[in-house]
């Protein structure tokens, strides 16, 4: 039960019920679509890049609590970041949910702390892809890939 309540903690449930930055961006400079065939999660990430910074980021789609909350938290975390910083966040997040390292938990930076709400996912190997879908899609949008991203 502990692992479960750590996975579905209040921050996650809150972002699932009321996802932030949940809209289709009219003036996006880039976007990408992601799909998790295992559970049918779909997400589109929209970016507005300006001078090498993520000026705005949003998402749309439908998915489980973990993938929705992860996408929502991600948009909050990367807004205003440089491309380098966004990539660093991607790597740190990936390492955290796959249980390889805990840079987020240790860093003490405020946006990292929020993302750390998803650390519980690593106890649920079947759900890691739900948490990383939005991030992989973000990466594709940053790299301006037109091929849909798939977690499989």
């Amino acid at each position, binding site marked *: 039960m502990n692992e479960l309540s750590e996975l579905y903690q209040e921050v996650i449930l809150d972002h699932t019920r009321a996802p932030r930055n949940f809209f289709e961006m009219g003036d996006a400079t880039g976007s990408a679509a992601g799909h998790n065939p295992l559970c049918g999660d*779909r997400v589109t990430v929209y970016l507005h890049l300006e001078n090498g910074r993520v000026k705005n980021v949003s998402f749309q789609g439908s998915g489980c609590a973990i993938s929705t909350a992860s996408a929502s938290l991600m948009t909050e975390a990367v807004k205003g970041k440089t491309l380098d910083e966004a990539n660093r966040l991607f790597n740190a997040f990936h390492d955290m949910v796959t249980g390889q390292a805990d840079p987020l938990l240790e860093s003490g930076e405020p946006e990292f702390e929020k993302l750390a709400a998803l650390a519980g996912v690593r106890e649920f190997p079947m759900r890691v892809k739900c948490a990383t879908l939005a991030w992989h899609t973000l990466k594709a949008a940053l790299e301006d890939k037109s091929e849909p991203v798939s977690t499989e």
Partner: protein
Amino acid sequence: MNSATRIEQPESAAAAPDLTLDVERIRNDFPILKQTVHGKPLAYLDNAASAQKPQAVIDAISEAASTCYANIHRGVHRLSELSTSAHEAAREKARAFLNAASAKEIVFVRNATEGINLVASSFGGHVLHKDDEILITHMEHHSNIVPWQLLCEKTGARLVVAPVTDEGELDMLAFGDRITSRTRMIAVNHVSNALGTINPVKRIIGLAHAQAIPVLLDGAQAAPHMAIDVQDLDCDFYVFSGHKVFGPCVGVLYGKKDHLEAMPPYMGGGDMILSVSFEKTLFNDIPYKFEAGTPDILGAIGLGAALDYVQSIGLDRIAAREQDLLRYATETLSAIPGLKIVGTAAEKAAVVSFVIDGIHPHDIGTILDREGVAVRTGHHCTQPLMDRFNVPATARASMAFYNTHDEIGRLASAIQKTIRMFA
């Protein structure tokens, strides 16, 4: 509520056949059911994905591997002879299970998927031409969609899809309308894996044969739950997967002898030939023509044991038990506010697919798992059907005869808990 014991106590002592089943004894036959998962007793309700194996199957495989294993059809030595005859005995058991006229009509394949691909490629490739039509339904498993799409791409034939009603039944009027002078093949699931619907396959075959159209039945979800008689059905092809019938992963394709004889081989290799020279190769007789290479010998032997096991309980008894479980699960789950059952056909196998307002099936599956309750969540390899019902996925509890009312009760409590967590 004493319905838990209903099946063990027939209501009247009249001459009706005794369909009671000793669940305790049966559960003892399945070692895996004694497991705990996350500290809770396992409630295995994912039988439509794959079924658990009784000790008899485990023993048959281990016994064969310990005493008579060798390659088949290839040696004059003693073990090869024993192994060949055990393998062929399994074929005979599959014949009896389907009540086919001859064991020559039984082809061992890897699974139902391979059986369908074999028919699509060999039979379909042989009879289909440009602008011909293949009729399937909206509730097919991907494995009864994609092989036909591949065939359409190759031949220029068209895939026609018969619609499904809101209850999850085939719309038989519309089905009839979609049979045209161009229809050359009909492929339909006997029982839907995502909805549980039992399709009126005899009626379908009647309609089809009136126009001389061959019919393939995908019996992957029917074989574990009901007696099947391919001669009575008069289907042209029937496929099922051993792993869903409490056996190993070996599939069975039944095909009418005339079809199988007329069909070109599916794969080339050893065992499927009579003689090979670089100028001319003569193919073996059916069914061997379709069994290129060394098959899963131990798997087939294990499948034989699984079919024996199922027959020893009796498919009528299994069907009666599962209908009781279905009734109980449907009652229990539909009493939960916010839960909606997807697939409410009048004729159903023991499958209950459901969605809950505001909670994604994947999250349901994770929370249920921590309660020891194993269900499948996702699109169940039926994406077109999910689209039809406007859901990305469902959670699905699928029962076998070894499941109990208590397990269904635990499923219901775990669902309640999920709803509370997300409230």
